[in-house]
């Protein structure tokens, strides 16, 4: 039986993979982090034995009549880690009442611990299944962007000049060095992109561009920030890696000023052109080496083709959307992921 960890019910790609699993004759159960966070659950530990019972509505693929479902860990032959939890229930409500409601420090402290507790519970599930084949185990799936850049360079990739600094003057030197007086640098988070909600607006951290003028407008010192040389690109590349195979797509984001710096600032009126791409052999080889070095079975790599023809490595997203590569290019990745999971389960049993 294949176990799928996802976040919520509204995930079309996950559903499509499950449809393929069924069409290909496999059994699958899906656990949504969102539901586990609030649903009925019971983990019983008796010495070395552990049984898990969950609210039937949180487990897709279970018998429709059941109220609770016993999650038979022993029967799990392969695991697909798609997502788990972005936000937990306790992060979305006001935990305090009365005069304490405004006590932000208390709120923050409570939330911090509750999040840790929730994370530990999820970790418990993952560790119980650590000896099964995964696509990919969350421990391997937490990558450090800077670390990956170095490994990519070791694998033979060209990578953008990168600086992490707190000093404006250092940044200025960096900008002049790699981009000249007319050039610009880009800044992005060291970790993940994020979004802040303030009232009726949402504030997204996307990759942003700074020229010398913008740099001079910064304070002399700031929190450690990541900067990279801005490379004039012909197009961006997103490559999905699955158990040794590579599926590449080119994104022509530079045709549209809105998406030029960060293609995720989607232009819904005129979406960027996304087309299949044939990776040059040496790029493909380097990517395979890098994925093996990182011990990842799957992931999406972001690269770009510079105007001068070089292919430059940017980053890897180990757990992410492959629908956006699969659909425009008609790569049938949903079926391929299903087939890979089935194969992993079979191989796992053999081993």
């Amino acid at each position, binding site marked *: 039986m294949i176990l799928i960890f996802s976040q919520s019910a509204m995930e*079309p790609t996950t*559903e*499509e993979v499950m*449809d*393929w699993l*069924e*069409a*290909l004759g496999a059994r699958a159960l899906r656990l949504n982090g969102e539901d586990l966070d609030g649903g009925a659950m019971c983990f019983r530990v008796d010495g070395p034995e552990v049984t898990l019972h969950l609210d039937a509505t949180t487990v897709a693929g279970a018998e*429709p009549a059941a109220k609770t479902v016993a999650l038979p860990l022993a029967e799990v032959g392969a695991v697909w880690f798609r997502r788990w939890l972005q936000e937990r229930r306790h992060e979305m409500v006001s935990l305090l009442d009365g005069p304490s409601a405004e006590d932000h420090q208390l709120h923050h402290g409570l939330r911090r611990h509750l999040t840790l507790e929730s994370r530990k519970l999820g970790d418990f599930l993952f560790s119980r299944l650590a000896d099964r084949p995964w696509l990919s185990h969350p421990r391997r799936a937490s990558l450090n962007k800077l670390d990956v850049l170095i490994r990519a360079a070791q694998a033979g990739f060209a990578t953008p000049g990168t600086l992490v600094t707190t000093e404006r003057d250092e940044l200025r030197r960096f900008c002049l060095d790699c981009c000249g007086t007319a050039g610009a640098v880009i800044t992005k988070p060291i970790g993940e992109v994020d979004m802040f909600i303030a009232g009726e607006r949402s504030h997204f951290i996307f990759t942003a561009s700074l020229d010398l003028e913008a740099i001079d407008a910064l304070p002399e010192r700031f929190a450690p920030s990541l900067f990279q040389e801005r490379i004039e690109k012909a197009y961006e590349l997103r490559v999905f890696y699955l158990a040794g195979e590579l599926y590449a797509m*080119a994104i*022509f984001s530079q*045709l549209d000023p809105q998406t030029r710096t960060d293609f995720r600032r989607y232009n819904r009126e*005129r*979406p960027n*052109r*996304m*087309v*299949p*791409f*044939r990776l*040059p052999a040496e790029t493909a080889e380097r990517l395979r080496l890098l994925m093996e070095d990182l011990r990842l079975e799957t992931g999406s790599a972001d690269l770009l083709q510079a105007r001068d*023809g070089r292919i430059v490595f940017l980053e890897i997203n180990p757990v992410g959307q492959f629908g956006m590569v699969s*659909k*425009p*290019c*008609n*790569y*049938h990745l949903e*079926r391929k992921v299903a087939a890979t999971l089935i194969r992993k389960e079979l191989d796992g049993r053999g081993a």
Partner: protein
Amino acid sequence: MTSEPVFALFACCVPVKGARRSVVCDLQRQSLHFIPNGLYEILTEHSGKTAAEIKEIYDHEFDAEIDEYFEFLLRHELGFWCDDPALFPMIDLTWEAPERITNAILDVDERSDHDFAKILGELDDLGCKALEVRCFHRSSLAELRTILEAARRGRLRSIDLLAGYAPELTPEALAALAADHQRLSSIVIHSAPESRQLPPDRRGVAVTYRTEAVDSPRCCGKIHPGYFAIDLETFAEGQKHNTCLNRKLSIDARGEIKNCPSLAKSFGNARHDSLHSALAQRDFAALWSINKDQIAVCKDCEFRYVCTDCRAYLVDPGDLYSKPSKCTYDPYTAEWRQPAEERTSAGAQREGGSR
């Protein structure tokens, strides 16, 4: 790598040749761009050649036109100047789907006696993702609710509702229905006193009132640009399959299980037969592989991969491969005939499919 760039269409922009003119199907942005057959030739036979080489091939008689062509394609972002076309393959047009049935029609009239729970449960087993419910009669809100309730669980992604006007089917009542049933994607009320198109709500559900009466399956099979589907999935499906009937299952108002309610052949009745048993019959899928390339006239039409076809109402009811009777487009003149012309010339004989 060539020293001079060549023009390359984006893979999602696929040229299709018609008898009189051609079309570039922008499958990503879901639009069509007409191009002359000369440009089609350049884009296909001469793809990979530089502009200079192409002009040479035409003896420099069309240099200005060729420049204009590329200008046009660039302006609509249908292609780009490419240094290394080997890096940009054409798009794979194979089609596949895990569902045994992808879409279904369920007809209802005032005499219908459907077991909705049974039907929807069985459709779910077959993996059906999209359902169209057609109520030919004056429908009550209660009735619509009953049908939608039966579809609450399961794997359906979208439900299109077509129902006959009744005064209680107000915009507010329908909006409430849509809010209550997440899978509803469109509501069309036919036989309404006046036509009205409500703007799509937050979830994109469109409610439309039409004065037109849709009171039997005989209304179906209309071919016009409003029904073109310009997207990769349908385009791919159309390469080898019939884009209307492929993986479709229908239940007519009497409960008969068919490919489509307008066809005569029944494979059982939903009251006592399972949909599964109907599907298992050897010739249930017989029509699924008749694609436009096999159909007279359509095979020469530039719209053939975005048009969804109809096998029920044919110009020649005795010939399974004849053109849909309700299509007024003539690819040999690139003109849509006026509907009035259609009706005056032996209209009564043309219609009637097989019912």
